[in-house]
């Protein structure tokens, strides 16, 4: 048994079937088209997906298959054309722009492929951003960001600039930023693609431990088969659709060309 599997929460068995009692995310028939007429690009062609609270779902598939579009819609960053997408009971389609902005600030945490840390701010200030957006005082936000830095193993680097950290450390900071305001859903876009194997492994381990221990749901877009082991389920996308949803073992086998 790997470290990743060992650290899974006890309700993992439920997630494997994809049917938790109160789903964190439910998407039904979600479509998205960019452009119009002959130049239209069908990014999503009727996606059905559900994610349970406390579940870590990975979205995998070739470039351009719609993974980023799907997490953008689920995170409330992008409008979808048809279908429904309900996140923690809120139907994104029925929200105004202002409501969706507020929803993102309160409910969603983001981890980006290239970290997107603001280079002119210190590590603590970067982590404090979601709290400042929520209206916390600067002193409180900085104090809490220093606390969470300790949890990701960077307690002594709170006053550093991102440029002075390694890639793995920067991603840890990004994870701390995504967690500090206790969002119920965290979306991660290729969180390990800029990291070496060991660092990527450590980062995923951290995300499982810190995020899932609080019951938060994670959707991780990745090409990196080496981190499949951290997922509860893996949804394989192609051409704007979810082709299959597997356990990590089956997905890993499929990625090596041998489906058990």
């Amino acid at each position, binding site marked *: 048994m790997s470290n990743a599997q060992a650290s899974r929460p006890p309700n993992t068995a439920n997630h494997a079937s994809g049917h938790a009692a109160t789903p964190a995310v439910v998407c039904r028939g979600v479509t998205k088209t960019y452009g119009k007429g002959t130049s239209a690009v069908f990014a999503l062609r009727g996606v059905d997906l559900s994610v349970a609270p406390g579940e870590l779902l990975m979205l995998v598939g070739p470039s351009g298959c719609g993974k*980023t579009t799907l997490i953008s819609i689920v995170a409330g*960053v992008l409008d979808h054309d048809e279908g429904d997408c309900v996140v923690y009971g809120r139907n994104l389609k029925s929200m105004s*722009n202002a409501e969706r*902005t507020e929803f993102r600030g309160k409910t*969603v945490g983001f981890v*980006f492929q290239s970290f997107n840390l*603001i280079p*002119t*701010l210190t590590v603590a200030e970067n982590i404090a951003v979601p709290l400042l957006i929520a209206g916390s005082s600067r002193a409180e936000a900085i104090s809490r960001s220093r606390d969470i830095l300790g949890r990701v193993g960077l307690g002594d680097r709170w006053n550093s600039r991102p440029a002075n950290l390694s890639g793995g450390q920067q991603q840890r900071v990004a994870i701390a930023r995504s967690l500090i305001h206790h969002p119920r859903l965290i979306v991660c876009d290729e969180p390990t693609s800029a990291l070496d194997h060991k660092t990527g492994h450590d980062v995923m381990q951290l995300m499982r431990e810190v995020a899932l221990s609080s019951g938060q749901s994670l959707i991780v877009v990745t090409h990196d088969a080496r981190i499949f082991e951290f997922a509860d389920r893996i949804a394989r996308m192609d051409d704007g659709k979810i082709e299959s949803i597997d356990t990590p073992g089956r997905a890993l086998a499929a990625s090596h060309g041998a489906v058990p």
Partner: protein
Amino acid sequence: MNLLAIKMLMGDRLKYFGLIVGMTFAAMMIAQQASIYSGLKSQTGTFIRQLSNVDLFVMDEQVRFSEDYKPIPDTALQQIRGIDGVSWAVPIYKNWLRARLEDGTRLTVIVIGLDDATLTGGPAEMVDGSLADLRRDPGVLIDVRDAATKLKLERSGGVPIKVGDRLSINDTDAVIVGSYRGNPSFFWEPTIYTTYSRALRFAPRERHLMSFVLVKLKPGVDAALVQSLIAERTMYRAKTGPEFEAATSGYILKQTGILVNFGLAVILGLIVGALVTGQTFFNFTLDNLRYFATLRAMGVSSLRLVAMVGSQVFTVTSISFGLGIGLAAAFGVIITKTDLAFLMPWQVLAITGVSMFGVASLAALLSLYKVLRLEPGMVFKA
């Protein structure tokens, strides 16, 4: 969040100083060009402003500007003195005459003849002698700054003219009895003061010789009322100082290409300065587009994003504006001792400030457009 925006602005020292330097240069250029234009325009009214104790200038109705010599008869003086509301009225002569210095150097001078009794309108700051010395026949006063430049003895190797030297004006002898420090004027010929009666001796024979009648009103009298009375009872026109000054600068602006060309230079300076400001800030915001998009994704509202960029615009533009105006003012102080034109009234500060804040805000908003439209590709792109 606005504090974060300021930290985003100042965090990268190199970019921040580049931004400040670029925008300071823009502010300096706008303010300096506008101040030079303003100074030139102001210098067209030097003669009029020097007569600050005069309420009205009465002149031939065809006079277009302060140097336009269209004399009126002496009888006009008596007519005007008889108008209700006039406290006193004195004649003044002002014309361009030929002069010859002791060594034979020939030049044109502006001769101003002051009322013999009161010497009203004389220079405010005497350097050598006193205004009363004009009563010594055939005395004249020269501008101390002209002595070594425009009035120097060219044919004797450029020796400055001095008190006690003689010259002839229109072939009539004159002696320099004093010197004054005048304000720089747009009109380039040296100005020589003398008495009204002596000026008439210098002037070529004409039927009428009086240039203007200077009028002081009784306390509390409405200038417009006296102007209309003068228009009714005489065939002359009365203008207040500001009106005469505006007419003079307007005429110079219209008839010569000097102010127009300089005005174009000001507009060019404004455009270049505004473009530098806009381009610099546009680039700065574009550089930070990814981070603004990240903040937008993380729940920062459009309004707050605009406020953040607004605080950046306000901070960097205020600092650049202050530094630019300071540098332009320092330039003005440096050239104070010369005849070069430089005047920085509040309008120059307003124009500079509005241009800079306006263009920087516009540039920032244009660059923010993409963020406000939020493309997910921008947030999630590697």
